[in-house]
């Protein structure tokens, strides 16, 4: 069930009505939200509901054990076991066939060929995200960030809550469980801002990301050898806008929908293409994942303890971040570019922050960072390294000035990039205007805007890009 569909609209109306009518009975409300979240997840494949349930039970059990255990060594072993189980399940679904292929290839090169059979494994939608939530829970218990362990019903809702279930944002246990544990307040629904986020998300996904993808970017990346340098350059920029609009749309809608149920999610994107460096970029792009990687991988690796250790940890973190997207060399290179640039930036700039740079330095930093991020996107989007190499070599065909980008596509692309430079508090500014209208009028405008966006969009909506991760 995708957000920008009528199916989801109906699901939301029923869930919203029932959930708020159960306000006086918080336990029933949580139970209903859990059941609704499992129905939402079951729309993809009901069998994966058992996996989600199993993950909730395992992490809940380990949470109980870690909380009750006093010895540091035992606690460390328990948290290590819980994380190993979480990552083992994730690794099985994501990398089993890749590892099997590598073993087959190695055995063949050693002259001991065995045709180990591949398994027909379907990657459960959102498995990465509920795995990250599970790890966040056991580690937060281990670090004593939670006063007490969650009950099993709370744990089930924490992992399955439908707005963030399949593509984030990653909501920390210490941030979200206390919200679930207290009754939702029917007098404190941040509705106007939620409406604006949902409408903005729908527009970004249904119009900008969909059309950029189908009318331009897909064709460019399908066969880069048929395009000239300018077209390829626009293709790379187009994909940068497409993936931003696609992914940030999902999280904006998720944040808005959660707010209508009385819950707060953290910000996940903050105009990433205006970043003046790679550190700045990762403070603006998929913030919930980058801060998750920082707190649960980078810091346990040793964090900033010494320059060389910092560089090593940055590279490991970004390479694993790349591999998380998929077992393929192009994702490794994507991670290596980001890790390498972070290392270079730290080595050259040290503690000097971009905010202290002169204006020309910040402008130059933004242009260079954006283009290097686009270079990394070429590897990320290409189906394999051959296509990526074709794309990069094509950027040298400057004599070929054909452009397949139409004025419509170029408008979406330029508009998408220009939106990165709007005021950071643009949603709050719009909200201050919108709240002047009475709620029935706000609702009418929301309804008209939804119809307008649906009329602008193509027939059918492609799944969000990050569903595959």
């Amino acid at each position, binding site marked *: 069930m995708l957000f920008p569909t009528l199916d989801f609209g109906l699901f939301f*109306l029923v869930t919203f009505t029932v959930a708020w009518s159960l306000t006086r009975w918080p336990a029933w409300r949580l139970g209903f939200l859990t059941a609704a979240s499992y129905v939402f997840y079951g729309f993809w494949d009901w069998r994966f509901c058992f996996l989600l349930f199993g993950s909730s039970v395992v992490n809940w059990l380990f949470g109980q054990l870690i909380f009750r255990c006093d010895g540091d060594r035992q606690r460390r072993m328990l948290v290590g076991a819980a994380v190993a189980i979480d990552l083992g399940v994730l690794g099985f679904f994501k990398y089993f066939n890749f590892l099997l292929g590598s073993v087959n290839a190695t055995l063949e090169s050693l002259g001991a060929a065995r045709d180990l059979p591949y398994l027909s494994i379907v990657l459960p939608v959102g498995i990465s995200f509920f795995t990250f939530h599970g790890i966040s829970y056991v580690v937060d218990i281990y670090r004593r960030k939670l006063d007490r362990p969650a009950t099993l019903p709370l744990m089930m809702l924490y992992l399955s809550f439908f707005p963030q279930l399949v593509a984030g944002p990653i909501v920390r246990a210490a941030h979200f469980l206390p919200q679930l544990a207290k009754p939702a307040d029917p007098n404190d*629904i941040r509705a106007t801002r939620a409406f604006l986020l949902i409408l903005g998300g729908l527009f970004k996904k249904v119009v900008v990301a969909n059309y950029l993808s189908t009318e331009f970017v897909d064709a460019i990346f399908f066969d880069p050898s048929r395009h000239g340098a300018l077209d390829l350059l626009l293709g790379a920029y187009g994909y940068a806008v497409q993936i931003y609009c696609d992914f940030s749309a999902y999280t904006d809608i998720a944040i808005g929908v959660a707010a209508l149920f009385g819950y707060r999610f953290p910000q996940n994107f903050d105009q990433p293409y205006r970043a003046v460096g790679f550190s700045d970029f990762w403070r603006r792009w998929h913030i*919930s994942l980058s801060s998750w990687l920082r707190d649960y991988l980078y810091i346990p690796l040793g964090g900033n*303890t010494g320059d060389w250790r910092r560089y090593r940890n940055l590279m490991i973190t970004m390479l694993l971040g790349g591999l998380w997207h998929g077992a393929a060399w192009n994702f490794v290179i994507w991670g290596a570019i980001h890790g390498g640039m972070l290392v270079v930036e730290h080595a050259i700039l040290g503690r000097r922050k971009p905010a202290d740079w002169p204006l020309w330095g910040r402008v130059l930093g933004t242009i260079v960072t954006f283009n290097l991020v686009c270079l990394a996107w070429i590897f990320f989007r290409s189906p394999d390294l051959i296509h990526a190499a074709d794309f990069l070599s094509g950027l040298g065909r400057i004599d070929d000035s054909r452009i397949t980008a*139409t004025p419509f596509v170029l408008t979406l692309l330029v508009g998408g990039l220009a939106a990165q430079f709007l005021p950071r508090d643009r949603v709050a500014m719009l909200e201050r205007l919108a709240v002047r209208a009475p709620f029935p009028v706000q*609702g009418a405008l929301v*309804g008209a805007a939804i*119809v*307008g966006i649906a*009329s602008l969009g193509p027939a059918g909506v492609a799944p969000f890009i990050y569903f595959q991760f």
Partner: protein
Amino acid sequence: MPPKEKRLPRDRPPIEVMDGAAPARLRAVAGAIASATAISLLLGSNALLAWATALPVGPTGDFALDLAQRWQEAMDSLGLTAFASAITALLHAFQGAVWPGT
């Protein structure tokens, strides 16, 4: 001398999108959502028909399709499909635009 510890703070709070947003009462929000639903039904009958057409064939799907068709015809006769149609036509015109000289 061992390297100096420069760890990042572990308790950096997440940035809240909803900070400073205006709170509203459930009754008002429910009214707004009801109003949005009503306007969507009135102006978006074309999308409703497209959705019903894609439903699996069966008694429920056939019933929904029949209902959506009749609703769309009723809205069309009232001129309420013009809003969506005008937006789609505008988009198609823009989509079909080409560069000067081509």
